[in-house]
């Protein structure tokens, strides 16, 4: 049975998106390039969007590593001249599947911190709207009334804010670097939790 769009969006929001920066950082290290990474990431989301149901994906982070890896390899095989630097590192990638889940409380705290940071970095108007809408669940219409502006103006600022948030999610931050270590050094870690 197909999942609802809302459930899929929520799953991607909680299980995939938080790991995007780590995946990007890994892709940069691995491929040694910056320019094509946006396309690889976008393709990975496309593959997710094509699914009716994501419940069979047990680990969103591992899925992202695996999928982007496959996309890069497919591109490489299609190209005339094959860049094979660092490709050997990829053998170690299967370990991402075995990455032990972060302690739930710690992960939650990190994630909250990340959300706060993303919102804090927004320009003032965007930030006000985002805090009201996302943190306090106020509707766009109500926000328009509270701030004495039109709904269209609220929507415009909200879209601008989301654009900036999407860009912010690409980058590294403390959360992602710590999460990244969990994935990459998981082999050294015990799984007896």
């Amino acid at each position, binding site marked *: 049975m197909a999942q609802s769009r809302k459930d899929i969006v929520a799953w991607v929001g909680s299980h995939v998106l938080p790991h995007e920066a780590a995946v990007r950082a890994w892709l940069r290290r691995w491929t040694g390039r910056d320019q094509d990474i946006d396309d690889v990431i*976008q393709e990975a989301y496309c593959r997710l969007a094509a699914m009716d149901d994501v419940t069979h994906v047990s680990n969103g982070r591992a899925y992202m590593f695996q999928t982007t890896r496959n996309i890069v390899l497919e591109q490489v095989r299609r190209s005339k001249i094959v860049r094979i630097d660092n490709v050997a590192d990829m053998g170690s990638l299967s370990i991402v599947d075995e990455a032990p889940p972060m302690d739930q409380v710690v992960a939650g705290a990190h994630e909250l911190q990340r959300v706060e940071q993303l919102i804090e970095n927004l320009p003032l108007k965007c930030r006000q709207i985002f805090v009201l809408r996302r943190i306090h669940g106020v509707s766009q219409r109500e926000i328009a009334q509270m701030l004495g502006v039109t709904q269209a103006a609220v929507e415009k600022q909200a879209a601008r804010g989301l654009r900036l948030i999407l860009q912010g999610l690409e980058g590294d931050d403390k959360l992602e670097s710590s999460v990244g270590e969990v994935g990459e050094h998981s082999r050294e870690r015990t799984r007896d939790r």
Partner: protein
Amino acid sequence: MSTRESAREIADQAAEWATRIDGGSIDHDTDVGLRRWLDEDPRRQGALLRAQAALSFLDRGRALAGVIPKPESRPIWVRRKLMFAGAALAASLVGVAILMSLPNRYGTDLGEIRQLPLSDGSVVALNTQSAVEVSMHRNAREVTLTRGEAWFKVAHDKTRPFIVSAGRIRVRAVGTAFSVRRHDDGADVEVTEGVVETWTVGEEERRIQVAAGSMAYVAAYEPPKIVQASADVERSLAWREGQIVLEGETLDEAVAQFNRYNARKLVISDPGLAAEKLVGQFRATDPQTFAEAVATTLGAKLEEDGETIRLSRRSPR
């Protein structure tokens, strides 16, 4: 196709659609404009999912934080944390071996690469399976390449020309850097700095000059000629650091390079595979890593025994 939108441009548009859906002004499943936008480019589905997921991620922050008291539309001041990235400069210095007394003859085994300083301040780097004999005279510095390949960084000394002999071939420098590789019927001369003169014995009047960045092939019984005026000389001399640098060479050529350094030979059992072109940098003495990279990248099969590493195409599915 007209100009292709970048991933960023699509992401920006997706942010607008996601905001409209979130604000309730349109519905994801029924809005005609959204449907049209999505259908125009298959990449947009992914971008929209990501944008909606971002909003969901932010909502998750609220859930994690529990109940937060409602503010009186007071601006939240930014606490910008300045992150001072400690710039640590890791200067790795290559240690230079100190040579007590230079033996007259010097050689390397299979896979071995050695650098040795000469008494006049010049430096010789010997590639795999190579040998030189060095004689320092009052009015000349003479090096005989008895086999293989060597690179010379010649200390400047006008009074004592630096002459390399490789069979019938001669290369003369004053203060410059170049390599000589012996073949059965001649030698390659590649110049990294300055200019050298090269000729064959008995053909002294037909000498040519080879400048930095050029490569000449000097045949034993023919006048020398420049084969590449702008050879990527630094790259082909990557062996001095024990590296093989591939810039579009075929797998076949790459394998020949590796086999120069290693007793354990790489074998390609498929002509199609052998013609694949590669870019990359590897340790010359590590054919295993190279073979694994090739197998992963080209989807090839790897078979190993003690003496060879065999690469072949996977049978088509």
